């Protein structure tokens, strides 16, 4: 290994980072996760910690850019140079830049997260079968609204699991429109546009207006790339057009003809000779996680290594099961020392659940918010409860229905069961919800303990229950609390002082007085009016150990009582202390 001249390193161990923008190639949550995992590669072997900031100057500023992107080292289009980073220090030092003319994936082709549908945001499963035909990309088949969709299991015809693929007809990212979808046609500088455009920008990113007139409303967002979109060239984001004509010959698939570098390309109109519109065909792409882990090595003070198997070797190699090489560990520990405390616990052999003691109840599908199923609505899965398997490990639960601190213990609810966490690694359960609170249903959206009266409130859909010891009141409708008919469910609750609780739903919150059991006047308010830097679509919000937790998928954003996000992490690893 090598370090930079003068052994450049950070003079503190609590490193901060900030993600300035996103690539259109993957969902922002997948990019966040790739970066978080890349930092974890280094924090696992050193005393360094990494905290994500959402505003202001962080030690490591992470961004995507193309060609000339604001520093003296322009990127070079697709392939070749993938990313670079600066050694530790002030200003641009420590920053990491990723070439957005690359196709960013997790190393094995397009990563397509789904939205809406009934698969709870699962990834597309390629290939999949629909109406007996195999598909390797998202498709608009079976729909008349041009929304691309995919199955999230191998066989849609059998499983009926699906979701919608990234599309500007569904959402945008970045910009100033909170993720609103594009509105077509829209007017920009007096011209009418029927699709996303790069006009008006020098960075090559595709954008659209989210109202019909950008000149008037100035509302815009960036267009996500579809899995069939070409990379680079002069038609970024457009799909290939087959067949296309090139030098008078027709092509029905991507070709390397005309190129000396053997890269596959296609035209994005029917005639390249006439229109000269083209781009590279999507390939396996580069693993953002692996490249980021390498770049963050630079940002921490490691130069290139000449050991082939080291992460800090300058060439990109995709590895399915990445493990930090001894050379990298030696290098980073030369700068920062080893991680204090005992080494990681060796993995335990997985416990096999016998076929007779299956326990988990099938989760209810989340209510699709907009689009319908491609062909037929999936039938509602049956909810069955059987005997409790004591080996059922909360570390195997991807997302809990809700979490809440009750009587000093964090309670984790999922499908009729709950676990109690008193301290890290001290998880008890599972217990059956109805054995403790017989009136409650299996799925609890939110629970909290009123600090003033010690009453426990449980919400499920539009109903709620209040437990005081063994006595129960409910179910009652949430309209009794003053919540309107548009509130489908309560997604989270946090206690604010004695006798006041904030209830969250759909990006808004209400303040409830637990004495009168009514919401206060002047509500609802937008979450981001008070809580900046947390996901607005958090599916669970709760108070734990004096901090507010906003959960989205497997991550949490922790906010202190000064309403600053002071940590983002994994629920499994940080809160439950799973191996």
């Amino acid at each position: 290994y090598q370090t930079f001249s003068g052994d450049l390193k950070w003079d503190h161990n609590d490193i901060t980072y900030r993600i300035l923008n996103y690539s259109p190639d993957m969902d922002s949550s997948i990019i966040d996760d790739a970066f978080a995992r890349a930092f974890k590669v280094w924090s696992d072997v050193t005393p360094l910690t990494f905290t994500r900031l959402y505003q202001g100057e962080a030690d490591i500023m992470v961004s995507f850019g193309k060609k000339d992107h604001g520093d003296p080292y322009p990127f070079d289009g697709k392939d070749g140079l993938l990313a670079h980073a600066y050694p530790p220090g002030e200003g641009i030092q420590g920053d990491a830049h990723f070439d957005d003319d690359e196709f960013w994936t997790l190393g094995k082709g397009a990563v397509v997260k789904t939205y809406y549908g009934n698969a709870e945001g699962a990834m597309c499963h390629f290939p999949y079968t629909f109406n007996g035909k195999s598909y390797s990309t998202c498709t608009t088949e079976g729909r008349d609204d041009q929304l691309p969709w995919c199955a999230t299991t191998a066989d849609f015809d059998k499983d009926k699991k699906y979701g919608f693929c990234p599309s500007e007809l569904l959402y945008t990212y970045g910009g100033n429109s909170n993720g609103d979808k594009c509105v077509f046609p829209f007017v920009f500088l007096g011209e009418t546009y029927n699709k996303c455009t790069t006009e008006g920008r020098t960075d090559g990113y595709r954008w659209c207006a989210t109202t019909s007139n950008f000149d008037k409303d100035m509302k815009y967002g960036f267009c996500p790339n579809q899995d069939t979109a070409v990379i680079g060239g002069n038609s970024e984001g457009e799909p290939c057009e087959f067949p296309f004509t090139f030098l008078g010959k027709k092509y029905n698939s991507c070709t390397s003809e005309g190129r000396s570098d053997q890269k596959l390309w296609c035209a994005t109109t029917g005639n390249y000779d006439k229109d000269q519109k083209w781009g590279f065909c999507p390939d396996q792409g580069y693993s953002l996680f692996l490249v980021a882990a390498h770049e963050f090595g630079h940002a921490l003070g490691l130069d290139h290594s000449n050991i082939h198997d080291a992460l800090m070797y300058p060439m990109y190699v995709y590895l399915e099961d990445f493990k930090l090489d001894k050379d990298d560990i030696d290098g980073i520990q030369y700068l920062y020392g080893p991680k204090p405390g005992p080494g990681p616990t060796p993995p335990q052999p997985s416990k096999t659940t016998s076929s007779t003691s299956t326990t988990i109840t099938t989760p209810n599908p989340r209510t699709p918010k907009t689009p319908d199923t491609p062909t037929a609505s999936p039938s509602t899965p049956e909810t069955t409860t059987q005997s409790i398997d004591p080996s059922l490990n909360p570390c195997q639960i991807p997302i809990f229905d809700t979490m809440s601190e009750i009587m000093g213990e964090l309670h984790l609810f999922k499908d009729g069961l709950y676990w109690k966490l008193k301290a890290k690694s001290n998880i008890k359960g599972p217990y059956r919800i109805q054995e403790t609170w017989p009136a409650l249903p299996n799925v609890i959206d939110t629970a909290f303990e009123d600090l003033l009266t010690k009453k426990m409130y449980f919400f499920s859909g539009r109903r709620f229950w209040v437990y005081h010891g063994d006595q129960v009141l409910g179910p009652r409708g949430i309209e009794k609390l003053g919540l309107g008919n548009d509130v489908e469910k309560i997604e989270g609750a946090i206690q604010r002082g004695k006798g006041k609780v904030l209830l969250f739903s759909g990006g808004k919150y209400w303040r409830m007085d637990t004495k009168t059991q009514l919401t206060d006047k002047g509500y609802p308010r937008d979450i981001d009016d008070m809580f900046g830097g947390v996901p607005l679509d958090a599916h669970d919000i709760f108070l734990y150990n004096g901090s507010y937790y906003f959960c989205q998928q497997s991550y949490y954003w922790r906010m202190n009582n000064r309403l600053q996000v002071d940590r983002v992490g994994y629920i499994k690893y940080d809160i439950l202390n799973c191996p």
Partner: protein
Amino acid sequence: LCAPMKTVFVNFPGDVLKNLTEEDLVNDYLERYGYLNSKARNTKQMSLSKALTKMQRYLGLEETGQLDEETLNVMKQPRCGVPDVQN
């Protein structure tokens, strides 16, 4: 029908490397990653061969000092933009 198809290379609009010859590509690579100093290159103070040897040694290739196929292939591989040799 049996005649070999004549390959025609095209300059694709928007392609960054469209006009780079192999020589340009090699010089660009060696300079960008710190094996060849641009001033030295202009004054012929450091030969291409020395720079190639330096690169081959650094990246664990056979040290021929020549632009062989293996070296050229490595130059075409995707990589990090931070120079291997700091100036």
